[in-house]
């Protein structure tokens, strides 16, 4: 039975066909690892993530998300069909993969990805937790003309001044997260507040700081202190001492991964959390569990995904259930981004009708007219900078007594429409390079 929505989608797809045919006609027959990397029954995908170092918690979660998506897609069945995929694998080809530990370091990530491209003829590679490694991998992707799907990376630069034709990002950037979070937090905590910032000193920390200070100022907040610390700092005492003496009402902690855990624990010991409200622009995957609900209660932050969204989206429900059955815990941000974008790549390949990266890029760039239905509702990649336009969950930490289960750490207080918080595409100087 054809309903109105199916007809509209079919119509839209029909309208797009001439464009795609045109695009394919212009696509080179040989580019990057195409067609060499397309076997008769399989293709290879390289997975990069930090399994050691500051971001290893998020990286391990990312890995499990990729593995689940690849296993489901290869097996075929109801779940891939619900995403819109046909049969087993992608265009009848099984996905083979290897995993590389990037240690969160750009140079290690580039070495690993280069091996994937040269040795394994990867048709696509994906993954990151640090924005610094995502930027390095994007550059490699565009140089070698192999598609790269960014993992966790919040810096504005990834789809800003360092954007690349061959890189796509599915998580929100710092600007989107801050614009979505600031009004919610200001409404809850107050308008005329003084804020002290703890900023990790690299591209992620600086751009999150820029964006959150801008949007919190628009809410009437004043910034009284900015403490910059190196990535991987173990002891934050000197910075926290300054924050404790700053007279601020709000402590904005931008640190991520195990840095977020250490700095939050130490902030509590310095009495910062009893005198100030804690705001975390981007909540790390396991910050809830590692810091504990006693300290995280009442904390506001944005996130890529929270597992209770399973109540809103059918694809989120099947994802959370399958992930839990396999790994015995609820998926976090890393696993979600990995899972979702592996499906989106597979869908884009099927829409393009082949593995030519130029065709796939054009499909993804054209996804505004044919959005993807996902675990977080309807999304698309913006053609101008390859940033995904998507809803942003705003979370608030639950008190231990309000938790309905061991992993019920957050309440989703808002799901902000991505369209309302996007930066103008040229704001951060994005110039996508050539296709060929």
């Amino acid at each position: 039975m054809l309903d109105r929505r199916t007809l509209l989608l079919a119509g839209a797809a029909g309208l797009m066909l001439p464009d795609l045919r045109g695009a394919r006609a212009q696509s080179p027959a040989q580019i990057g690892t195409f067609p060499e990397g397309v076997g008769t029954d399989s293709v290879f995908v390289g997975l990069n993530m930090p399994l050691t170092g500051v971001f290893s918690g998020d990286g391990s979660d990312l890995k499990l998300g990729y593995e689940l998506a690849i296993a489901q897609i290869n097996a075929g069945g109801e779940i891939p069909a619900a995403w819109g995929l046909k049969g087993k694998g992608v265009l009848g080809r099984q996905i083979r993969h290897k995993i590389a530990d990037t240690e969160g370091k750009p140079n290690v990530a580039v070495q690993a990805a280069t091996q994937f491209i040269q040795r394994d003829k990867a048709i696509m590679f994906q993954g990151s937790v640090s924005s610094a490694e995502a930027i390095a991998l994007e550059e490699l992707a565009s140089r070698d003309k192999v598609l790269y799907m960014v993992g966790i990376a919040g810096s504005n630069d990834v789809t800003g001044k360092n954007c690349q034709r061959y890189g796509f990002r599915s998580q929100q950037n710092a600007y989107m997260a801050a614009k979505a979070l600031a009004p919610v937090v200001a409404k809850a905590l107050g308008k005329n507040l003084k804020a002290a910032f703890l900023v990790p000193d690299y591209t992620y920390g600086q751009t999150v700081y820029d964006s959150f200070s801008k949007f919190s100022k628009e809410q009437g907040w004043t910034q009284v202190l900015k403490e910059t610390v190196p990535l991987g700092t173990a002891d934050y005492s000197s910075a926290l001492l300054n924050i404790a003496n700053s007279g601020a009402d709000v402590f904005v902690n931008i640190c991520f991964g195990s840095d977020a855990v250490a700095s939050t624990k130490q902030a509590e010991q310095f009495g910062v959390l009893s005198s100030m409200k804690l705001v975390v622009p981007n909540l790390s995957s396991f910050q809830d569990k590692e810091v504990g609900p006693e300290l995280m209660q009442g904390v506001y932050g944005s996130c890529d995904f929270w597992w209770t969204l399973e109540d809103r989206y059918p694809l989120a429900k099947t994802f959370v259930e399958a992930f839990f059955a396999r790994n015995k815990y609820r998926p976090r941000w890393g696993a979600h981004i990995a899972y979702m974008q592996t499906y989106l790549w597979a869908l884009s390949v099927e829409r393009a009708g082949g593995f030519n990266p130029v065709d796939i890029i054009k499909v993804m760039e054209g996804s505004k007219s044919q959005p993807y239905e996902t675990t977080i509702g309807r999304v698309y990649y913006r053609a101008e900078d390859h940033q995904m336009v998507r809803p942003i969950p705003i979370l608030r930490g639950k008190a231990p007594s309000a938790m309905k289960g061991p992993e019920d750490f957050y309440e989703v207080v808002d799901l902000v429409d991505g369209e309302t918080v996007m930066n103008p595409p040229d704001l951060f100087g994005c110039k996508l390079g050539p296709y060929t």
Partner: protein
Amino acid sequence: MPSTAVLLSQAFNGLALGSLLALVSSGLTIILGTLGVLNFAHGALFAVGAYTAFVMMQATHSFVLALLGGCAVMLIIGFAMERLIIRHFYARPDEDQILVTYGIGMVLVEALRTWFGGNSQRVPVPSWGTGATKLGFLVYPTYRLQLIGIIAALLVGLYLVLYRTSVGLVVRAGIENAGMVGILGIDVRRTFLFVFAVGIVAVGLAGMLYAPVVAVTPDMGASFMVQSFVVIVLGGLGSFPGAIVGGLIAGEIISLTSAFNSAYSEVMLYGLMALVLVARPQGLFGTEGRV
């Protein structure tokens, strides 16, 4: 220019941070100064200490018992490392010692990751150390205040054992000429074993005491290892008093720079280390040509 109160607060924090750095570095410098072995598994053993505290806390729910049990575990690890591996390397070149200890470090870190996963574990502050204490010009975490006293007592104890008893004398004589010490009827191998194990307990204890403060992850030792090297380069390679003074100087540099701009804390620390290496390569308390 920061206010006097801020400078005083940071100077005090420098003392606390410095004492922690001194304790972390002491295990490295004990083994280097007495046995001449540069232990690149130092960072990993720091992490092993922290995880030992975590496991013992889960089992006993007492921080003191966790420390005691942890010390016993570290002692066993120290004995095993020395007997099975390190003693075969005393006469080998420095490069071999570095490679084997680096390898041991990698094995230990990956073993922790296999058993506990990559996420950080929670070790709570002991009940007698919770909260913050008002010191007039600043409010400071009670546990960190207590740590200053605990660490001072530990360092004095270690110094007395190693440098004011016959054990230390035998070790130093053994390093110079093990054969002659043996002829004198002293079992130098047993003394080496003891000193190595003490060094491992010291670094493990640092990990245990630091566990409630930092994120306990398998890789947590990496940054402490780097800082330990900076401290012993400042103080003088292998000099125990040098590690204490080096730790305090490093703590003060990091903290006082933060009073002006925290982004430059590490720059200043490494800048000072470079300066010391140029002006006095043997470090403040080191002896030229030793180690």
